[in-house]
């Protein structure tokens, strides 16, 4: 059983929310496991918010999204026209420092790398392409 949905959201915080809500609806209407759903929503939040915060989007910039589900495996493609940014090139975060010295930078991307089964970035024709796949994960 497979399904595809495409949409475009503004490169703003409101657009991030639209993207997350849309994936949640898409996943639930195609019976994606909750175990996969939260992983994808979290990863999507990290990727989209990085674009909004670090991509210097133009006022009317949009982010194109493609959602797929294929036999319980979810896929998301995120395409934007913002500044070149490869999330996978962000160095691994500090995960062992004390409360006083811990720096949270890079945590978001690290979570994407850990939670997604596959993640890839490419810069093509002045656009950032980020593709990630997750699952199947069974609900307990």
């Amino acid at each position, binding site marked *: 059983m497979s399904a595809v949905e495409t949409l475009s959201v503004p490169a703003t915080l409101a657009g991030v929310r639209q993207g997350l809500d849309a994936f949640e609806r898409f996943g639930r209407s195609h019976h994606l496991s909750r175990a996969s759903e939260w992983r994808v929503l979290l990863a999507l939040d990290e990727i989209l*918010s990085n674009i909004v915060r670090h991509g210097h989007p133009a006022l009317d910039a949009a982010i194109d999204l493609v959602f797929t589900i294929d036999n319980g495996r979810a896929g998301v493609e995120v395409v934007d026209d913002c500044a070149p940014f490869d999330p996978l090139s962000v160095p691994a975060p500090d995960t062992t420092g004390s409360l006083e010295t811990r720096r949270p930078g890079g945590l978001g991307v690290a979570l994407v790398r850990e939670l997604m089964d596959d993640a890839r970035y490419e810069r093509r024709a002045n656009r950032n392409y980020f593709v990630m796949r997750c699952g199947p994960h069974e609900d307990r």
Partner: protein
Amino acid sequence: MKIVEMRQGGVNVLAPSGRIDTTTVAALEATLTPLLAAPQPRIVVDFSGVEYISSAGLRVLLVAARRVQGARGALALCGMGDAVRQVFQLAGFIPLFTIRDTRETAVGELAVP
């Protein structure tokens, strides 16, 4: 994101529900800020109703933990489901916080005698 707030035994208990991510974290931060400004704050955050937490939420909690420590107060987290716990583990955040299974235990430990 809805956040239920109450006071038990001199402890402020926050119970957010839904997702804690970039789109909802401002509500959590807004709820925590006045509590953190009080002297010796005692705060429990109950994650029973939380589906997942992203790095945006982790950042807010890290700041809260530091401020509580500086104010010689106490912060405890409880009710973590699999998703929240896994994210805390991946981020290496487990050793940074007081984490208990239930709200009763967390409030009990922080309550003013």
